[in-house]
């Protein structure tokens, strides 16, 4: 794992846009996509979000397709199970297995396709947000909500330390690998145990040091963030409204359309 999605968000041109607008677009897509009963609407949402991410956020298309394929394993297995077990209707195809009849019905196949479409649409909405908005921006959004301070504090410090530990972990892993620490199953298990332990102890000591250093700088349990004011431009409102209206129209006109 060399680069996480946040790295792309930091360089995205969409970073400068209003956070609430981006969150609204994402939430809208997720909710509409998951409530749709036809695969058409999620597909349209996925297409729009994909184009927006690649075009406006300047994410390389090959990378985008790669991360979209990441959940494929889990999703495909589950979709196959749904196709076989869920739904009723006439059988599309089937076979006998140890005296049991296993068959895919039209209902099951439709359900499986809808779920697949929903997942792809949901992922692309999520990618739109995470590839355009670095976590730092989302913290100011969190501050504006009513979450308790301790929760936000812990999230912020955790965010910072994820990168510190990731670097330590990668360093140790590299050092172990060049010393043949992952040559077979037994050695790799021992290596990963040592890696996790030294990470834990390192993390613990770092936490104690952090407390001392922040305390000596008058930390009272609250980080103050400087929030930038980012007005929403008219063109952005126009584009978002067009997208919303189009998705709602598609949602209503295709709600009974099934592929099979």
């Amino acid at each position, binding site marked *: 794992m060399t680069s996480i999605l946040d790295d792309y968000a930091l360089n995205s041109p969409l970073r400068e846009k209003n956070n609430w607008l981006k969150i609204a677009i994402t939430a809208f897509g997720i909710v509409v996509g998951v409530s749709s009963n036809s695969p058409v609407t999620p597909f349209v949402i996925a297409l729009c979000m994909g184009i927006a991410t690649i075009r406006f956020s300047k994410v390389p298309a090959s990378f985008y397709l790669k991360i979209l394929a990441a*959940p494929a394993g889990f999703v495909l297995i589950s979709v196959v199970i749904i196709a076989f077990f869920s739904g009723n209707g006439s059988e599309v195809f089937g076979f006998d297995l140890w005296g049991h009849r296993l068959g895919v019905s039209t209902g099951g196949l439709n359900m499986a396709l809808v779920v697949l479409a929903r997942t792809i649409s949901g992922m692309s909405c999520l990618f739109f947000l995470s590839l355009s908005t670095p976590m730092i921006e989302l913290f100011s959004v969190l501050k504006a909500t009513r979450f308790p301070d301790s929760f936000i504090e812990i999230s912020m410090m955790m965010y910072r330390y994820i990168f510190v530990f990731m670097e330590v*972990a990668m360093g140790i892993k590299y050092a172990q690998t060049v010393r043949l620490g992952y040559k077979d199953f037994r050695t790799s298990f021992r290596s990963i145990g040592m890696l*996790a332990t030294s990470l834990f102890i390192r993390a*613990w000591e770092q936490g104690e040091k952090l*407390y001392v250093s922040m305390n000596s700088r008058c930390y009272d349990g609250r980080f103050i963030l400087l929030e930038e004011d980012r007005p929403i431009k008219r063109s952005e409102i126009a584009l978002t409204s067009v997208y919303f209206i189009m998705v709602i129209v598609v949602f209503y006109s295709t709600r009974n359309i099934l592929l099979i």
Partner: protein
Amino acid sequence: MHIFEGFLPSPWWQLWFAFSIPVILFGMYRLNRLVSERREIVPLLAVAGAFIFVLSSLKLPSVTGSSSHPTGTGMAAVLFGPAITSVLGLIVLIYQALFLSHGGISTLGANVASMGIVGPFVAYAFYKAASKVNMNFYLNIFLATAIADWVTYVVTSTQLALAFPAGGALTVSGFLSSFTAFAAVFATTQVPLAIMEGALTALIMKYVVQVKGDVLVNLQVLTSEAVNKLKGAVG
């Protein structure tokens, strides 16, 4: 076992949110109280959360060949108790959804329920019960973590089977046959994975007892006599 974004249909994703939110609120209440009593706990919890995140992004060597990674929630439950683990789990799951595209926002409620709430609660209950009967510490950690993993995976299968019962309508037999299907397929990766994670966590604890046993005493996981005994037993 993350359920991916968009996978659970209405009303299930809303229902799992309704299940998780009260527990998270209780966890936050406990967290707030703990933080106001012992302020030094904030950085410690933060690094613990970051540790869970990094641990869950490391790939374990897997027997079945599929990529598998530890969840770390069993360990957190033993160290910090289940209520606080649920809050840490929530933050970790949000970060995983945003950074690594594991899980999602609409399925966050269901994932928090399985990985952040039920798994850790069972692990904690097991750890406490087994400590009462003086089970060997490492065996206890191994079992608690492995059980947390298995419970998480059973809950996930239940969530999927409830949302997609066999036959289309939610009946007991439809639920059961769908549950068996999900559970059987995921068992191929989850059963060895849980054993691996249990062994790994026990190994971590072994090193931690030797190098930094006072941490476990501070967290009231072990008494100082128990730490000394374990240290003596090793060498």
